[in-house]
């Protein structure tokens, strides 16, 4: 990547902001500064309108009705799947399964692939950077079947210990479950190289791309992993949308996960035949309007351009890092550079608990996240109970970072530190 844009942006941020009505809201009389994008993003008009259109013009259950409303809704839903497939460069739409979120995606793989492929004594390798959603399912699977969970550490800059990873993979592994970008620190892992290494060691590779797909171009054929999961709500789409991508050969061999309507082709009292991919994994009425919203979000992101968004975020990170480092008592966690990272900055102010900081920021209209970010193992590794996290997206501006920095000063004043 080696991005050079640092103080300039190629995005027309003013025009983008006009698409997000919520950014005009006031909190405590001050215009809101939304810097919790790693938790969830805001939604542009275009996405809300696409959803509204379904409800007002042709809503009907999908895949089932032999009438125009149902056919139009089905077409919109399957078109959303095609958009997801193109967005991540999946070889086939059959490999794209709609789920509620990244968490359900990991669980789908853990239940439908894991239970049949991970056996007593097998090794599952993962990292201390994982979100709980890509950690606890493997921890529990390991416990249930008697497998071993190996957790790779980070160095003091929050970068993955590649030496350790290589050593552990060499000992053999059935699965590597790894995040592409850390929601706690913003670190980006070189997943392409790592997947190749894991494959060479005979492991299947699942990539948690919840913090990558929204912020940087992701190409599943280039990454060459086996499974990849992400959530729509972090990329301008509504909560309730998300996807699992999996290699067709693996998906074909897997048992289903949820059983019920739509995922079967024939049921008798004694036996059931499954539907084709991807529907085999989509039981019951899908969140089809949320999925259509995800399709519209992808259109929006493509129109702006993922590379430009990524550059914009790195510019914001660079600006924020230099501002925070100038404030006495502020500690930044994770990489201090803008190489190989996404727009997440975790920090603490000495003498002020992150929750107190966030409460004071809120009074200033600045929304950040304070807590463990569903990342207990990482917090333990960093030796802190929690951090304050600012996370950026395409609509954020340098002015907003100044508002955050002012809020940091305000908190220090209140606490007299």
């Amino acid at each position: 990547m080696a991005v050079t844009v640092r103080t300039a942006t190629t995005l027309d941020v003013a025009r983008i902001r006009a698409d997000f009505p919520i950014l005009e809201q006031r909190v405590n009389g001050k215009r809101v500064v939304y810097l919790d994008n790693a938790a969830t993003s805001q939604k542009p008009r275009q996405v809300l309108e696409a959803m509204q259109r379904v409800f007002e013009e042709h809503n009907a259950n999908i895949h089932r009705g032999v009438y125009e409303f149902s056919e139009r809704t089905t077409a919109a839903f399957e078109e959303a799947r095609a958009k997801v497939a193109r967005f991540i460069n999946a070889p086939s739409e059959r490999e794209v399964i709609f789920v509620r979120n990244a968490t359900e995606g990991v669980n789908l793989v853990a239940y439908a692939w894991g239970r049949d492929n991970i056996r007593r004594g097998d090794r599952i390798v993962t990292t201390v950077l994982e979100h709980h959603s890509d950690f606890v399912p493997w921890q529990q699977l390991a416990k249930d079947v008697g497998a071993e969970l190996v957790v790779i550490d980070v160095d003091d800059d929050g970068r993955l210990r590649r030496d350790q990873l290589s050593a552990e993979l060499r000992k053999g592994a059935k699965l590597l479950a790894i995040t592409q970008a850390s929601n706690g620190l913003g670190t980006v892992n070189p997943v392409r190289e790592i997947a190749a290494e894991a494959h060479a060691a005979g492991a299947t590779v699942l990539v948690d791309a919840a913090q990558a797909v929204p912020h940087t171009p992701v190409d599943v054929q280039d990454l060459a992993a086996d499974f990849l999961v992400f959530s729509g709500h972090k990329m301008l789409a509504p909560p309730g949308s998300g996807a699992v991508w999996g290699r067709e050969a693996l998906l074909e061999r897997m048992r289903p996960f949820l059983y019920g309507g739509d995922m079967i082709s024939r049921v008798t009292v004694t036996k059931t035949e499954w539907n084709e991919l991807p529907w085999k994994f989509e039981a019951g009425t899908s969140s089809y309007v949320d999925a259509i919203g995800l399709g519209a979000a992808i259109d929006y992101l493509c129109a702006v351009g993922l590379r430009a968004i990524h550059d914009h975020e790195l510019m914001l990170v660079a600006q924020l890092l230099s501002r925070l480092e100038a404030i006495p008592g502020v500690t930044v966690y994770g990489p201090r550079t803008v190489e190989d990272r996404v727009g997440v900055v975790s920090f603490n102010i000495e003498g002020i608990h992150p929750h107190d900081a966030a409460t004071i920021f809120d009074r200033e209209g600045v929304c950040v996240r304070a807590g463990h970010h569903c990342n207990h193992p990482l917090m333990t590794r960093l030796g802190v109970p929690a951090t304050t996290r600012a996370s950026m997206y395409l609509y954020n501006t340098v002015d907003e970072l100044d508002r955050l920095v002012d809020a940091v000063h305000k908190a220090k004043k209140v606490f007299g530190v």
Partner: protein
Amino acid sequence: MDDMYRDYILDHYKNPRNFGELEGATHSYHDSNPLCGDELTMSLRIGNGHVDDVRFQGKGCAISQASASILTEEIKGKTLDEVKAIDRDQVLANLGIPISPARVKCALLSLKTLKGAAWGLTAWPGEEKK
């Protein structure tokens, strides 16, 4: 609507051509569309690379049955290569009416069954992967 069920389709539905069992069939295949309950069996007598005779049996909606009836007329006497070249577009075109997406599976069951009978294929070219 009159488009969709014009006389041609209804005629084939009510008076299916080449309907029944085929004595001396060399190839035969049964398939169904579980979503609709459409059922179809195609039986061929192939000799010397030609479809010497063909019959179908089945039940289901007008589209699926008429499509099968029309297809049997089309292939009788053709070479296997000619039969192999028949694709989904042609089957849909043969019906002569616009088929809505939800009914495409009905219309194409005949082709699926034919390919199954002739080559043991269970999908038609371009349809294996979406």
